[in-house]
Structures are given as C-alpha cells and as structure tokens.
C-alpha cells in the first residue's frame, strides 16, 4: 500500500521515461506532459490500490497511453500511430529511470560537442517543436535532408552517451 506522497514521489522519479513513452503516442512534448500530470492525479486518487512501485509505473504507462490515444481521438477524430499491441510491447521494454538518469547527464556533455549548426537544428526541432518542414525552410535545407541529419545526430549522440557511460564506470 502506498501513501499519496509516495505515489507522487515514485511517479516523479519516473517522469522522464514516462513522458518520453507518452510522447511516442502524442508526438508532442507538451501534450505528453499534460498526460503525465493527469496520470499522477489519477494515481494519487487510487493510492490504496498499488502494491509495488513496479506495478504503479506499469499502470501509469498503460493509463497514460490510453489517455494519450483518447486525447488524439477527441482532437483529431482518429488516432494514427503505432498500434496498441505494439505500444504494449514497447512499454514492457521501455528504459527505466536508472538508465535514463545516467543517459541524461551524459547527453548534456555530448551536446556540447556538436557544431552550433547541429545544435540549432536540434533546438528548432526539440525545443521549439517545429515541424521538420519548417525547420528545413528556416535552415535552407530539403525536408529529406533534415530527417537524415536528425537521424545522424541521434546516432552520434547515442554513441557519445554510450562512450561516456563506459568512462563513468571506470571512474569508480
């Protein structure tokens, strides 16, 4: 049995991986954060029903996914995206907080190694949340080039993060 404050603490600790999962449905960071807040409120209201942190987080993932799909259906009249069944498979394998925390710290350092141009590309896409077509127009690139550049940057950042985490292990 969890108390409301323990529910809030447990969910806040998992905020980043959870919102990332919800964003794979909403494709909108702000909407994903709204979903997360709704899920927190629901979880606190049902505090007595959870028996472990794992159960709570699993429930939050399912509840948030369903809520995100509902919101899209209400807003757009339909949901076009990954199937429920595939989202459920992804949920089971989704990175947990420990892994994400370590990645988060490393990513900040890796970002510093990017060229200003590449940082600007990521900023427009992920901070300003501009559609890729708009990013392409602003940066004077073709749309397909922007997709490929983003894919390359993701790969480079992923490699950099893995490298830094290996170094961290050696630091101990």
């Amino acid at each position: 049995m969890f108390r409301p404050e323990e529910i809030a603490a447990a969910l806040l600790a998992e905020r980043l991986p959870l919102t990332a999962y919800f964003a794979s449905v909403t494709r909108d960071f702000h909407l994903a954060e709204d979903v997360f807040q709704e899920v927190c409120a629901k979880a606190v209201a049902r505090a007595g029903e959870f028996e472990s942190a794992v159960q709570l987080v699993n429930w939050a993932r399912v509840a948030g996914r369903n809520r995100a799909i509902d919101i899209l259906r209400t807003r757009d009249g339909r949901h076009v995206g990954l199937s429920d069944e595939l989202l459920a498979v992804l949920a089971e394998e989704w990175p947990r907080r420990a892994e994400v925390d370590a990645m988060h710290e490393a990513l900040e350092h890796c970002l510093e190694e990017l060229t200003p141009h590449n940082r600007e590309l990521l900023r427009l896409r992920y901070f300003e949340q501009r559609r890729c077509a708009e990013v392409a127009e602003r940066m004077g690139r073709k749309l397909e080039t922007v997709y490929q550049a983003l894919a390359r940057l993701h790969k480079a950042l992923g490699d950099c993060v893995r490298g830094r985490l290996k170094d961290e292990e050696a630091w101990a």
Partner: protein
Amino acid sequence: MTDAEFLTLVMRHQDGALSPKELAALESELRGDAARRRLFASAQVRAQMLHEQFRRAAFRVVSEPKTRHTACRERVRNWLPYAAAACVAMSLLGGWLLARHGTVARLGALENCRWMDSSWNPSRGDALRRGQRVELSAGSAVVEFGCGAVTTLRGPVVLEVLSAKSARLHLGAALTVADTPAARGFTLHTRHSRIVDLGTKFVTTADADGRVRVEVSSGEVVVHADGHPAPQHLSEGASLTLEPGRARVMVRVEHGDGSPAFRFPTLPPPTDGDDADARQGKARITVAAGTLHAPEGRPQDNSAPADVLLDGHGQQDADAPGESAFIEDRSSGALLLDLGAAVRVERIHTYSWHQNPKVESNRGRAHQRYVLYGSADDTAPPVSENAPDAGWEWIAQVNTDEHFGVAQSVAERPSQQVCAITSSNGTLGRYRWLLWWMPRSDNRSMRFNANPFYGEFDVFAAPESKDETTTTETIK
C-alpha cells in the same frame, strides 16, 4: 533496412509525417526485432531529454561554471531576467494599481505560457484581483504586486493572489523578489506555512504532496510553520523543507566551513551531549540492512564501525573513511538506532564530510540521502525497503543534493553538510527505534552513487516531565 534508414523513419514518425505504408514498415521493423525496439525507445527518450535540456538552457542566463555553494543562488539568477523586467514595469506602474478597485496585482512578462484554463488568454499588464488564481501549465509568468514585490512563476504552478502584499502558492515553484522598503513584509502562504520577506529574494516550491521547500538567495526570510512556536529565520544560502503530515516535520540543511570544527551558519556542530551519545551509555547503533563499505584488499578504505556515529564528534579530516560510517557503494542499507527506551524525540542532526584531497571536484561522498523512520515498540519492526508495511512510522526524507541544487556534477556539493530534522509541534514523535534507510542510488554515474561519509548522528529527546508521569500514573 539499415539502422540509418530505420532512424530516418523514426524521425518521420516523431514528425507525424509517416504515410500508411511507412507506418506499416516501421511497425514491421519494431515487431520483429528487439534491437530495433531498443533503438526506437532510445530515440524517443533522447528526444524528450533534448526537449528538457534545451528548455533548461533557455532559462539559464549565467554561463559561468557553478561553484560549490552557489547552486541555490544560480537557480535564482536563472529567474532574474523575468524578475528584473517586471521590476522596471512596476516602477512605471507606481500606485496606479492600488487605485483600481479590487486590483491588487498585475501580470508582467509572459513567456511561452500555456494556461491550465485554455479559455483564459491574458496579456502582459492585465489586472489581477484579490482571490484570483494564476494557473500556469507551462512557460513563465511574472506577477507584480501592488507593494512592489515581484513573483516569477514557472509552470506547472498555481498561485492565488490574496492582496497587494500577499499570495498563496498552491503548487509549483515561485521566485519572489521583494527587496524594496514597501515590499518588505510581503508574505507567501503555503498549505501549512507562511514565508515573510525581510528584504530578499527567495524561491518557494510547493509539491503536490504538501511538501514545501524555501531557498533564500539573498537577504532574509522568516518561515512560520503552522503550530510551530518558533519562527525559522533563513538567510542567504539557507534552505528549509517542510514535510507534509501530522508532525509537520522540518528538514533544514546547511553547509559547514570545511574544518574539523564543523561550524555551520545556524546549526550546532556535532556534540557528545545528545541522548544517543556513547557517553550516555543508553543508545546502540547497528547495521540493520546491507553492509558497511569494505573493499577487498584496501583496508585503508574501509568504513568505520557504525558506532563511530555516536562518538560525539565528526571526522577530523575531509577524506577520512576510517572515521566515517558508510554503506557499500551501489547498495542500499540501513542503520538502526536503539535509544534504550521510548522517548519523545525533538531533534535529529546528521553530519557528513567528504572532499578528495587530490581531486577538487570529487565530493562524491559528501551528500546525505536517506529516509528516516521511527518506532516506539519494545522490539524493532523488521527492516526492509518497505518499512511502513512492517510497522515503521515515516518521519522524513532527506536528499541534500535537492537542497543544494546539485544536478549535474558532484563538484556542486558542499563538502561538509548538516541536516537537522525537527517538528513544528516540538516533538517528532515518541520513539525507541530510529531507522535510517539509505536507498541505493539509481544513477549509474559513480560520481553520484557513491555512498556518503557520515560522521555523527545526534538525537535529542525531550525530558520526561513530571506532569506526564503523573498523568500516566492517574490513568493506571
């Protein structure tokens, strides 16, 4: 499909630009290959992190490297552009605000605001009336009060404007700058406390579960917790957490002068005059879960026995494993204190100190991170991660990194720290047993998951009063 092609497809998915055929191709890749699912999840998580890191960077103004004691001040500085702009606006508005009936404050600069009520679409300069709520989902909004105080909100946050000189923070974080003579005395209320400004800048955070944290960057504030007879004075660099719950537990954290004297701004150094001290001969401390640090082949790095925590003093040196009790790294553990009999516990102080002599940035074991439980039973309840299930009563949760705003590097940590746990009603509770549950850090970075060097635990109990004895006898 190569990894590069697959990632390009993922980018198109994030952009909402997949055709039905491409969506089917993406699903097919994800269904049949766990490595692809992992790649997809990593890209999603990375996108979320990038969003948050850019957002944080956008609010960051000062680019100088953090020094160890400036984390709190830096967090406040991050708010300052908004607050400064609002101050200028306030000087122009003058007393006009107060002249308007019912208007006690006004909205200042608004940045990327998303309001909880989507039908509300205010503009800079809009009047705020007594009792009006500012409910911000995301972004930053400035509220300029009639007295000259300026509060900068960062969503998600709910602030209720009470008067030209007061407000209630229901949820979220607010930076208040009230450093003019007219603004002195500005009061920010939370669920169970009020924070009165004495000419300062301070950040208040109210969590959904009722926990409130106050951090002062300059000047001084007074915190009145409900039911607490003595107000808490906080000055520059100090912070205070008010825990939710019946006992109104307060957690106060300060950094020391980095000397064996363990001097702190307001809290006392370790003492042998407390009720748990070895000299009193009543208390005993043991390791109840996990093990103390004892690396194979390096006896010089071994933790001291747990009873070093009751010897009446802290470490004599900043890097003294032999004078510190600390749990094995990458592990959780628990220390159990038996006070010999159930007593009314008034205060608990815990001290830590670590600074690697060769690497200035290495203060990996200086922080404090634990959950404190108590029990008045004759025998200690079983010890496990789910202590409340076993009958333990929750007292407080401590994470000094939270207080000092340590997020990116352990170099931001003060090397010497004290944590004082007190209660607004005088006593934390009646306990014979105290349990410090020290959770394993989930952070994979060794810089963050080394367990801290604790040097001393002091527990102060209230004297058993005659009145209490008489009452007990009468009941018998």
